[in-house]
């Protein structure tokens, strides 16, 4: 099928490497003392220290675990309800008002309530990530299911498939590529929200370690974690792309536009 093995273009690295060298040179020339900035060499050193003492590993696992758990929880509910609403006009009309009023609530605005219910820790963070991931999956899977080619449904009816077989063999595979796009979108949101909750005070994960480094005036560690977060987010997305391609094969990779 698409076979998009785009070769890595090394020219893309010119600007970031140039920037790092310039920053290093500037730091050495001026010998800056700052609570916001740090020389790239100091950042690397701080990262190395945090890596060796286990801080990075521990924090990364915490952030990734909460993101994934929240994502899976939100995606499961979002998918279930989204498919249901996509299949049934009645259910869709019944739920529309509730969805449109709940959806605009920023997930992080629920931190106070979640704190009351769960206290600090994993459960509170997971619940907020799940809330944030729920909506895009719900909305997009509803649209994906409602947009399945009517001719395919007719084919399935003419072949004599029952309701469940029709959903399993036609509706879900047909909607899968769009649902996967929704999942990747929600995954990005999950990571953002998890780190936000940690920065807002939940004492776990990369976000919390960043805010801790900032408050203890260690900009080099703060910046090291920031760069690391970028790498983690990128790797997370690559993993999802990979699993989309290899776990679901051509079904997930067919072109979305018609």
């Amino acid at each position, binding site marked *: *099928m698409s076979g998009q093995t785009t070769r890595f273009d090394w020219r893309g690295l010119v600007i970031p490497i140039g920037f790092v060298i310039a920053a290093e040179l500037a730091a050495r020339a001026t010998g800056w003392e700052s609570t916001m900035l740090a020389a790239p060499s100091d950042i690397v050193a701080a990262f190395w220290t945090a890596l060796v003492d286990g801080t990075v590993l521990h924090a990364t696992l915490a952030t990734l675990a909460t993101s994934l758990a929240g994502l899976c929880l939100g995606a499961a509910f979002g998918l279930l309800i989204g498919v249901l609403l996509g299949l049934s006009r009645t259910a869709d009309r019944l739920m529309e008002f509730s969805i449109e009023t709940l959806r605009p609530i920023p997930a992080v605005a629920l931190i106070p309530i979640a704190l009351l219910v769960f206290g600090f820790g994993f459960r509170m963070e997971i619940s907020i990530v799940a809330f944030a991931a729920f909506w895009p999956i719900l909305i997009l899977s509803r649209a994906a299911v409602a947009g399945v*080619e009517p*001719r*395919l449904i*007719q*084919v*399935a*009816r*003419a*072949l*004599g*498939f029952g309701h469940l*077989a029709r959903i399993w*063999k*036609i509706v879900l*595979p*047909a909607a*899968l590529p769009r649902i996967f796009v929704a999942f990747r979108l929600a995954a990005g949101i999950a990571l953002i929200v998890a780190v936000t909750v940690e920065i807002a005070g939940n004492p776990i994960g990369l976000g919390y370690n960043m805010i801790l480094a900032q408050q203890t005036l260690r900009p080099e560690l703060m910046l090291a974690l920031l760069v690391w977060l970028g790498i983690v987010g990128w790797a997370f997305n690559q993993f999802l792309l990979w699993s989309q391609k290899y776990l679901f094969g*051509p*079904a997930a990779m*067919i072109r979305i536009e018609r």
Partner: protein
Amino acid sequence: MAELRQNGEALIAFDNVDLSLGGKPILAGIDVSIRKGEFLSVVGPSGCGKTSLLNLAAGLLMPSGGRITYDGKMVAGPRQEIAIVFQDYGKALLPWRTATGNIALALEAMNVPKAERETRIAELLDLIGLSEHAAKFPNQLSGGMQQRLQIARCLAQSPKVLLMDEPFGALDAMTRQALQDEVLSIAARTGATVLFITHDLEEAIYLGDRVIAMRPNPGRFEASFAIELPRPRDQLTTRERPEFLKLRRELFDVVKEVEH
């Protein structure tokens, strides 16, 4: 309207059938019996309810008035011995399944055991000349091959009736003629009853035992022609016969009159 019933055992019978969709009359007073093994072509201008007629026969639509029977029993829904070939093969095939997988869909619907599927699929692919393309996805096949694949999927149902809704309307002339002959040979070999909707008058005559012309607003039958051209038919000699040309002329006059 002239009595359209002919001798022979009726397999599908429309008895004074009306159809309205959303309050709009689509078909009115449809009366026709399709005999077992008959090849019935239906022509008419677009919007005359040809497709609705086919959907009624398939059990995908229910009539607003009158009754439709299949083999003497009321039609209550789709049944597996009736297969439909849609015009838009690009939409009717599952894009995420290979040619093999698309044919397998029909066998899954029939609950054919997994062990038997492979041989059935191989036979069908061979029949329609797609054996070399078994592992390809629909979007890797040409239009003609896709339509062949859809026909193979229908044949996997071992249907007694083939309902074909302008199946070759989107294909080029050469492919279309090749597929016309394939459908004729399939019908002859399996003894299937065929209801063939088309807007191509020559195609209707070339394929059919009988051609019915429809008139729109609401859709109803205008005229029926028995086609007595000898079988097997041939793209050159059949189309050159004086009866063929005469029928074409008559049918053309009817359709032209109807379109005003």
